[in-house]
């Protein structure tokens, strides 16, 4: 669609989706692009599925798009759920080890999906799956999964390291900036190491 790039961040309420979106938007702004974003708040944040969309480019009209070029998922089930919104040839960057089963799964009424790779392949989507939770712990806080994934996604997003650093500094609270800078670097390097 008219040159704007759409990145959707999905996860479970409380996982820092909104902060991840804020960092991405700030990074795009630092790159001198126009940015629009939209998020659903309120009732959705109480442990429900959360979606935040960031769109950037030379010119962006709509804050919303049904189809995303890149999806960043902080939870595995939400990543699988988001496959449908990816454009063909798009990329899913997914926290492959983070599983937060919803109530229906806990009660044994529904099954948690275990076929992310097959589904991604069937959908002709590029999959970048990583142990974001482990890397976040390594960075110093399990809460930085969102930023680890941004680091991993940086390989498919058109921003320089300088621009990412500017985005992080602009959006992340100063007291946790260092942890998140480490998280970003770990996520970025993890993908290079697996050669994706």
């Amino acid at each position, binding site marked *: 669609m008219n040159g704007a790039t759409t990145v959707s961040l999905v996860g*479970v*309420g409380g996982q820092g989706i909104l902060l991840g979106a804020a960092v991405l938007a700030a990074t795009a702004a630092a790159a001198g692009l126009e940015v629009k974003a939209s998020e659903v*708040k*309120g*009732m*959705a*944040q*109480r*442990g*429900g*599925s959360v979606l935040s969309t960031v769109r950037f480019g030379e010119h962006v009209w709509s804050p919303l798009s*049904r189809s995303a070029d890149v999806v960043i998922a902080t939870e595995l*089930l*939400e990543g*699988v*759920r988001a*496959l*449908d*919104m990816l454009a063909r040839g798009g990329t899913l960057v997914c926290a492959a080890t983070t599983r937060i*089963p*919803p*109530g*229906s*799964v*806990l*009660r*044994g009424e*529904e*099954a*948690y*999906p275990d076929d992310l790779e097959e589904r991604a392949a069937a959908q002709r989507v590029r999959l970048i799956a990583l142990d974001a939770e482990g890397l976040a712990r390594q960075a110093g806080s399990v809460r930085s999964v969102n930023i680890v994934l941004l680091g991993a996604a940086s390989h498919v997003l058109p921003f320089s390291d300088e621009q990412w650093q500017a985005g992080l500094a602009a959006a992340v609270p100063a007291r946790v900036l260092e942890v998140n800078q480490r998280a970003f670097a770990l996520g970025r390097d993890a993908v290079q190491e697996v050669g994706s």
Partner: protein
Amino acid sequence: MERSLFLSGNEAIAHGAARAGVGLVCGYPGTPSTEIVETAAGLEGLRAQWSVNEKVALETAVGASLAGVRSLVTMKHVGLNVAADPFMTLSLTGVNAGLVVVSADDPGMHSSQNEQDNRHYARFAKVPMLEPSDSQEAYDFVAEAFALSEEFDTPVLLRTTTRLSHGRGLVVPRVPVRAPRREYERDISKYVMVPQYARQRNRLVLERLERLRRRAEESPLNVLEAGSADFGIIASGVAYAYAREAFPRAWFLKLGMSHPLPYAKVVRLYEHVQRVAVVEELDPFLEEQVRALGLPVVGKAAIPADGELDPDVVFRALAPYLQRKPPRRRRPVLPPAPKLSSPPQPPAGLPVRPPVLCPGCSHRSVYAALRRHRLTPMGDIGCYTLGALPPLLALDSCLCMGASVGMMAGFNAVLGRKAAVAVIGDSTFFHSGVTPLIDAHYNGVEGLVVVLDNRTTAMTGHQGHPGTGVRPDGSVGNAVDIQRLCEGIGVRCATVSADDYAALDAALAREVAAPGLGVLVATAPCVLASRRRAGAVVVDTERCNLCGRCLDLGCPALVPGDGAVAVTEACTGCGLCVEVCRRGALRLPEPVPADGGGQP
């Protein structure tokens, strides 16, 4: 045959309500609506009461409707602004027994601060509207409105104006309508308007509007009256009477059911005449809809858009048009029924993830205690509305901010006992829970209001409110004490810690059993805001037999494991599951040492 009565429109509506088997008439006084409640108070077989305001009046009527009793609520035009919050969402939930809202408009502002045309509310809320044009119709249309309300599962707007409400005419009484009490059936997806259920109901509303339009086409309330002149008039309400007097030879499309507009009937009028006028007071409500059909019409270009009409004004306004050449006829275009959205289908086979009450949420203990009593819990709006979802299923209704208390009062008033309780959050209580409490006290209604006092406005992200005194900048101003506020009203009130399940359970049992009206404030800070954690509950896998009592609490930290429940790391150690377990299979963790040892 019974002798005819000489009644004002308002008196006729009250008598019509009694005839239609209405059990509750309530409203707030406001010219020109006041005499409906006053007259109803003198009639047999129904309860008439003044409400503290129009919003509470409507919520009270909704409670009565749910309890299975027909209810009529009255207000002047601006009163519907006050009642607009429940009115708009009541369109989505629909009713149990019929519910009719009388809006008495005041063209000319004889006794009002503005001249708003409340016919727009019928369109706005997508509900049917009836407009009587004399006292007999005012009497007759009440029963028609209730029949529509129950058939189409919708509130009905009965719109009058000053000259209808305060004009008088002869009324022939009719045979009473039998309206037996309808059983109340719990229906969470119909009456609890959380987003996922409201989206479904909203589609039903749009479909209902098209069915109502077909009814308006067939309804004998909408009459095409033949004339002898090449001139047709579309009119409703008292404007019809003016136009009829001014142009006795004209054709008429008289709209008794003026929303939704019967398009085909409008087109049929144009088959008989070349010139058509819409005669209506205030806004071009009908005129714009006729124009949208592509039909030439004379309306507000000739007839004043402000003030009252009368036969002379109508005649002078329209007479010149009868001398002119008729407008060129065009083919009308009937608007198609609107398309409904096709929401994205979630991928098949994937578990849904609805929002849930947090682990350790203090509301859960209130719901656990509440469900030991066979009561209908009227809910309200906040995080605690999530308690209506499985597995808790703890609330029967959620209409709008503050509606729980008035709905409880209406439900209990017509049943004459404490059948319903209200469950309302602290911030919502300040928003609009206080006025219905005053109302219930004034009207001597049985009831219990449970205030879920988690010391914040949690759902929207922990904002301050008058109960905490916390302001947006973090400073703390004056705080209002809920218990003292209730006691100041004259209502019995007790406060109990929501963390102390035994005390909470006992206090609730005491309040349920006590006569009259009471408030129980169950207080404990929001677990999310306070970040309270006491470590995870420990399971004795030998004793646990997976009976499910703890799992029914809907706590995300409790999982059915292999032969015993398992506790996830999301557990905050609130201990509610320990309280409900009957086998002693769960116990609280050892207290965390005061010198730290927890997470920094």
